[in-house]
């Protein structure tokens, strides 16, 4: 049987490798492997826990803020600390802005070209394209003039033969089904998205001091001084500058990204029957609204066996259901031993064996919850929220399903969300939910400051030996940082990142992880061009959290300088 290996390893860069055995046009067995050593937590041992966030924010160059905030939350959890309300709101706003940014980038810049065939664009009719755009939303950037301009750019690229990043798509693949007009509309939004990605990033900068590495978090709160009349602090000007940026980004999310995701889902309804995989779902609650992080704007919980009636809420980092439920299994990962360990007891002792189909084959450990593999990410988020009757989640999910059903001309129900396309659609739903919560959290901050509360920080006190966990429902799903502190120094630190859950290898019971399970029965029309595999893998938004990226420009220097 043909075996497909997708392995983009460059010289030192290790990433995701997917192996799939294909027979009869379908995947029969799959393996997900991360081919780069990821022992980056070891750098934290012996350091001051108050500084851990500076380092963890460099775990991943894409999700910097995410790891900074999960880290300070872990230390605060260990110390059972409360933090000022303003600190919660400011962190929440940073996390929301990052989430909006990240989801926009994923949809347009990381995955759209799996569905949109750029090479058909010269054939599109700009007037018809504008009409399609108008039928989807009231966004002002859908005029035929705009469409003609974007089409002109693509024609220019095709004529010059300089297709750039569009040179290596699977163009003309039988699984590409959109009309030239829809392809043109999607590409126009792909280019417009750059501007809104930048604006979302500016919000992070206003609150965080700098981007991409924020400077303002601290164990005990945030370091933003609030003084409404001072230029150097978080003042009214900055608070309104932030509001102004949200007011520009939010319409892009609600009038462009959300309708585009619904449209693509509606044009490819067959992908609601593919790629369910592991149907256990995990999401943690986030956007805390009280100093002790006991109440949240976004719910968390678990669902097992694809049955929404099994939903059980997670109450936060102090909830033993989560705190005691997680282990990381190393049976098929390149670490010594077999079986699972709780993250506080986790060791990272490498044991590289080469890729063995039935043995060890990945650097990613296999996290399990109550012994089971769990899918994490926006889909878990949406299903848990829907099952717990979270109002905003229900509103946007029902709206999305109605739109998709209308375009597909067949009913697409909540159950169909458990699929490859469901993951794409869930990300857009979550982004819309976040966009509404941005306004709410901004108002909460303004109201609280308006009451005269300008407190943002409480100094932590360290006791002899403590352990804690910091949670964040990141763009890619549940993130947990686990810390053990002894005599004021870090004695153990483990980050269980979303992609570890989703890209996990098999465990001691030989149960495959979510990528591996989702690829089973995935269609592959042409093993030489495994576009369909990429669609399912990309639906999880993989991020291997190993940010080494040395640029390969072998033999092309314009000048060489030898330093002696």
């Amino acid at each position, binding site marked *: 049987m043909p075996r497909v290996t*997708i392995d*983009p390893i*460059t010289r*030192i*860069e290790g*990433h*995701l490798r997917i192996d799939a055995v294909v027979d009869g046009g379908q995947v029969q067995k799959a393996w997900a492997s991360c081919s780069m*050593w990821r*022992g*980056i937590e*070891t*750098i934290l041992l012996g350091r001051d826990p108050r500084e851990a966030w500076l*380092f963890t924010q*460099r*775990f*991943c*160059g*894409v999700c*910097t803020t995410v790891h900074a905030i999960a880290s300070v939350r872990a230390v605060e959890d260990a110390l059972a600390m409360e933090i000022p309300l303003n600190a919660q709101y400011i962190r929440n706003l940073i996390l929301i802005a990052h989430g909006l*940014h990240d989801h926009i*980038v*994923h949809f347009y*810049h*990381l995955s759209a070209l799996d569905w949109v065939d750029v090479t058909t664009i010269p054939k599109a009719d700009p007037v018809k394209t504008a009409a399609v755009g108008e039928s989807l939303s009231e966004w002002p950037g859908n005029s035929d003039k705009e469409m003609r301009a974007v089409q002109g750019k693509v024609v220019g690229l095709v004529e010059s033969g300089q297709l*750039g*990043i569009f*040179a290596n798509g699977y163009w003309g693949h039988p699984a590409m089904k959109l009309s030239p007009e829809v392809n043109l509309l999607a590409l126009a939004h792909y*280019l417009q998205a*750059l*501007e809104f*990605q*930048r604006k979302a*990033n500016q919000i992070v900068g206003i609150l965080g001091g700098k*981007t*991409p*590495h924020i400077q303002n978090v601290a164990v005990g709160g945030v370091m933003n001084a609030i003084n409404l009349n001072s230029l150097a602090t978080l003042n009214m000007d900055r608070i309104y500058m932030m509001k102004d940026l949200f007011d520009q980004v939010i319409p892009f999310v609600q009038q462009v990204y959300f309708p585009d995701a619904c449209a693509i889902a509606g044009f490819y309804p067959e992908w609601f029957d593919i790629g369910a995989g592991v149907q256990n779902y995990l999401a943690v609650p986030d956007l805390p609204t009280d100093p002790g992080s006991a109440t949240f704007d976004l719910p968390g919980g678990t669902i097992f066996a694809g049955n929404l009636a099994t939903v059980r809420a997670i109450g936060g980092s102090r909830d033993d259901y989560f705190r005691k439920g997680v282990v990381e299994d190393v049976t098929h990962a390149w670490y010594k031993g077999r079986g699972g360990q709780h993250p506080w007891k986790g060791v990272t002792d490498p044991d590289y064996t080469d890729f063995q189909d039935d043995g060890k084959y990945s650097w990613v450990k296999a996290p399990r919850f109550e012994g089971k593999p769990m899918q994490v990410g926006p889909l878990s988020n949406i299903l848990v929220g829907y099952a717990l009757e979270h109002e905003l989640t229900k509103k946007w999910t029902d709206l999305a399903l109605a739109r998709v059903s209308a375009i597909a001309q067949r009913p697409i129900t909540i159950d169909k969300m458990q699929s490859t396309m469901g993951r794409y659609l869930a990300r857009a739903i979550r982004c819309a939910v976040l966009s509404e919560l941005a306004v709410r959290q901004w108002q909460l901050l303004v109201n609280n400051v308006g009451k005269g509360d300008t407190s943002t920080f409480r100094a932590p006190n360290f006791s002899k030996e403590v352990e804690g966990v910091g949670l964040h429902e990141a763009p890619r799903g549940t993130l947990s940082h686990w810390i053990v502190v002894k005599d004021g120094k870090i004695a153990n630190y483990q980050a269980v990142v979303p992609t570890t859950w989703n890209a996990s290898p098999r465990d001691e019971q030989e149960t495959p992880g979510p990528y591996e399970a989702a690829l089973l029965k995935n269609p592959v029309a042409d093993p030489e061009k495994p576009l369909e595999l*990429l669609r399912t*893998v990309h639906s999880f*938004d*993989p*991020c*291997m959290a*190993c*940010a*080494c*990226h*040395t*640029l*390969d*420009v*072998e*033999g*092309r*220097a*314009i*000048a*060489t*300088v*030898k*330093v002696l």
Partner: protein
Amino acid sequence: MTTPTTVAVLGLGNVLLGDDGVGPFVIEMLRAGYALPDSVSVTDVGTPGLGLPAYLSESDAVILVDAVCASGEPGELRLYRRQEIDDVPLKPRVSPHDPAVQEALFLVDLAGCGPGELLLVGIIPEQTAVGAGLSKPVRRACQPAIDAVLRELVRLGVPAVPRRAMDAPHIWWASA
């Protein structure tokens, strides 16, 4: 008087992976040692993947400082202009971490907000394993890399001025 050229000097790389952190290291040395015109910004951008376009789209010129994979001795500098970067064949993207410089440049150009000029100051690394801090040859290459940035700023008409008393560079990741 014409408006001064706006320049973004961006250090790329992961400071927790040895010599991969040379870009951010050079940025901190520049910040500590030189007074820069208002139109010149210096930023440690880490490894932003497709977050990079946001940093490329607001300047007339961009200077990137990064570890590069090229044949040669560790610590050697390689300078590249736009054409040399564009000539490298792209590989399929799977994760947001895949090298994004070419993609980001292509995107901002297509969107009509790309930089008019580009220089990449590349440094050949010795080791990029987990660990904070630079190898000796790469540490020695930092001043020549800064000099290359300074020459480009002169060429662009926005020279930097050495500070009389240099601040201590803020290399927080390399402290014990």
